[in-house]
């Protein structure tokens, strides 16, 4: 066969597609599904702008064949805000000037969300290590690290309120 069948759930919506088996996941998300929030940067696995979550874990969508993602659950930046309300991580990036041009931001967010789920109280070193595969040419990283730390705190207090 020269087309591959891909059944994907993207941000909770099921899709059944036939794709060119050479295509990386990032192109299918952008061109077939119109989800252009995931950015195509270097296409060599370096810059991290295309980061999405595949079955919960952050991956670079330019290094994964769309066909390989058959059966997977994909989360992209479009699924992060709920009903027009920014996620606490998005709000923290906004509040702390964690982006300028914004090209890297969707990838930064998807990587950081994976970190915060695995490690709800990271220190600055853990945040820097987690973001090592995401390049930003504007901010110098410092405000991004601060925003992730602030978001971690916000999410923890949110959880305390819901638990209590």
């Amino acid at each position: 066969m020269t087309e591959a069948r891909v059944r994907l759930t993207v941000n909770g919506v099921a899709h059944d597609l036939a794709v060119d088996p050479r295509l990386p996941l990032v192109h299918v998300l952008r061109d077939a599904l119109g989800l252009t929030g995931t950015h195509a940067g270097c296409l060599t696995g370096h810059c991290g702008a295309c980061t999405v979550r595949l079955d919960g874990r952050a991956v670079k969508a330019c290094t994964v064949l769309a066909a390989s993602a058959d059966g997977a659950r994909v989360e992209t930046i479009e699924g992060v805000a709920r009903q027009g309300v920014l996620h606490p991580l998005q709000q923290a990036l906004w509040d702390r000037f964690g982006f300028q041009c914004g090209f890297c931001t969707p990838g930064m967010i998807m990587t950081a969300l994976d970190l915060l789920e695995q490690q709800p109280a990271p220190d600055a070193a853990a945040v820097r290590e987690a973001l090592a595969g995401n390049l930003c040419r504007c901010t110098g990283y410092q405000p991004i690290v601060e925003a992730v730390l602030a978001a971690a705190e916000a999410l923890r207090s949110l959880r305390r309120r819901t638990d209590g």
Partner: protein
Amino acid sequence: MTAPSYHAPRSLDDALEILGSLGDEATVVAGGQDVVPLMNQGRLAPRHIMDISHLTELRGIAGEATLGGERRTFVHGPIILGALTTYTDVARHPGLGARLPLLTDALRQMGGGPQVRHRGTVGGAVCAAQPVYDLPVCLLALDAVFILAGREGVRRIPASSFFLDAGRTARRPAELLTAIEIPPAPAGGTSAYVKLKFSEGGYTIAGAASVLVRDPDGVCREARLALAAVSRVPQRIPSAESAVVGGRIGAQSLATLGVRVEEAIADPIDDVMAPAPYRRAMAGVMARRAVAQAAAR
């Protein structure tokens, strides 16, 4: 350019059957970290894609034993890494880091971020055989054996004869690497991996993997030293290894080891990242550091 045929078998038997029928023109994709960027750049145009990422039977780490009612990890036997075990699986495994600290060292110094570790597989790193990769050289220092399966049966190839050139290995086109076997370390064994790179996401300029076996009094009985990113294939340096065997490891024997490393590298890689003389010099430094670090453990 017509699209390649695509095959995504769900069992190893099916995969070997299909691979055997495709001749020598199939491109095997596991985690995709090496192959997919090459395809994106147009540097690789497969005629057939053999996607093995769904072969869950090839993912996992074996070698645990229950002794005296207590779960202990890797007390005696070899460790088996399934070819599709991810870097994250290795990093998270309880007990593996204590037994093979150089693997933990290598993962910590690997560029690309957690995304690459979540998706990249140990088998993919071995079969890609890029000189700048960290895992092949660690497995060479550990005397690992690669298990290759084909329709005709199974071959066991030691790491020392697996890497033929940059990007070229002893794997035949109709074979799959299914597992990596790491023999048990003798008592007193320890290890370390040290590398030089210019930025967090930069490629290895020179890397050194060291495995030492020492007596309780500190005398070194056996040393293995393997270098990454210096030659086109991972390389053991026997003349340098012998510099630290037979005595306690100290400043003098480490200095000799560094000099012998530099002498032994005939034709270092020379590219935009680093000229040959610099690579040679740094290989000596990394070798000294790796052996010193293993000796301090």
